[in-house]
């Protein structure tokens, strides 16, 4: 637990690009491992929502899911991380990149995706974080003290 390291790689020989295949479901599947997703989970386009989001429809375990695919904001990438096998670095908590993705499809059970959904609203943070962490230029400082 002492040392946590994450090895983020965007390009690599064995790096798989999972774009178009990353799904966020409104349920928790008590299973970890590979599954034949493409044979069973078949999203179909279902028009455009009131808010202009392109919609998709799929079924999982009998429930109707309505989803939308969103591209990750410019400058961001998605990473699938896996813990490095503990024997080569027993004391540290190291993670390595297994795959990357540029978009994510998130699904609601029974209701149409909307900009009001927590999942979409979570991206507000990126804008806010940028504003918070951007260095303040002397000009900005000057202009704000003028206002005061």
């Amino acid at each position: 637990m002492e040392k946590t390291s994450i090895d983020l790689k965007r390009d690599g020989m064995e790096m798989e690009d999972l774009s178009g295949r990353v799904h966020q479901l409104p349920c928790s599947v008590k299973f970890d491992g590979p599954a034949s997703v493409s044979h069973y989970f078949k999203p179909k386009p279902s028009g455009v929502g009131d808010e202009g989001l392109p919609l998709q429809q799929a079924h999982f375990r009998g429930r109707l899911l309505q989803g939308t695919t969103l591209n990750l904001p410019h400058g961001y990438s998605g990473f699938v991380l896996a813990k490095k096998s503990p024997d080569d670095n027993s004391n540290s908590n190291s993670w390595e990149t297994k795959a990357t993705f540029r978009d994510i499809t998130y699904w609601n059970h029974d209701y149409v995706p909307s900009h009001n959904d927590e999942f979409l609203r979570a991206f507000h943070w990126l804008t806010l974080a940028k504003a918070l962490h951007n260095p303040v230029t002397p000009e900005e400082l000057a202009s704000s003290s003028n206002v005061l």
Partner: protein
Amino acid sequence: MGSLPKWASKPCIMGIDEAGRGPVLGPMVYGCLYCASSYLKTLATLSFADSKTLKEEKREELFEGLKANDSIGWDVDVIDPRELSAKMLKRTKINLNEISHNSALGLIDRVLKMGVLLTEVYIDTVGDPGKYEMKLSKSFPSIKFVVAKKADSLYPVVSGASIVAKVTRDHALKEWVLDETAENMHRNFGSGYPGDPQTKSWLGDHRHSIFGFPTLVRFSWGTCNTYFKDIAEVLWESDDLDEDGGSNNKNGKRQLKLSNVGFISKRSEEIESSGKGRCRFFEARKLELLTHF
């Protein structure tokens, strides 16, 4: 849509019946058959009977006959198993009786809109006949409804509708194109009734530890649970809100129930976030700072 026959503007009678309500897989079909009231006597000689008492070839033959008969009109509403599962597993569940009622109402509406002068409709009951009749009469005050048990064997016009429904359901299942593309899938569905040995073995062969079943199966049927005992458990956000829903442990369930009593606002807060002390901005967006993982 063809042009409306002349007899349709005279008082008409219609029968409605369903096929495939009980099966655990495949579509449920509502069928209707209508004709001028003056044609009823002839209709009675066409040897329509409750479709369940007829052999498959006889049903097919009768269906071909009534399709070719200019004095008879018919229509069907095929309800996809995906739709049945989805409605019955909605956040606010719609039960099968309601789905059935709405299908029948939809058929009546469709035939009326075509311009057929319906004055009498005979229909096999779903649920309580009295309540069902009230529902129908309220939607269509100008029509006289006869809602009865075993209407399909009592009234030839309903027997005819039962043939329309049954043959359509059989064809739909026979020609069903499975959504799933996994290997080793086959089409020996059987009748679809939970007790049918062929259906049972099909269900056994197509059970999947993650996806449950192909979407041909009605996931809302109790039969499925016996097959789902040892597959991966799936917990739904929507079930956490539901007092009767499948919660993971007894304590969790009890707690949810208690917090439900009279504290609606508290309830939504709990769902939004369990982390206390976070800024509301993050709480509402389910964002949390992770330092250990």
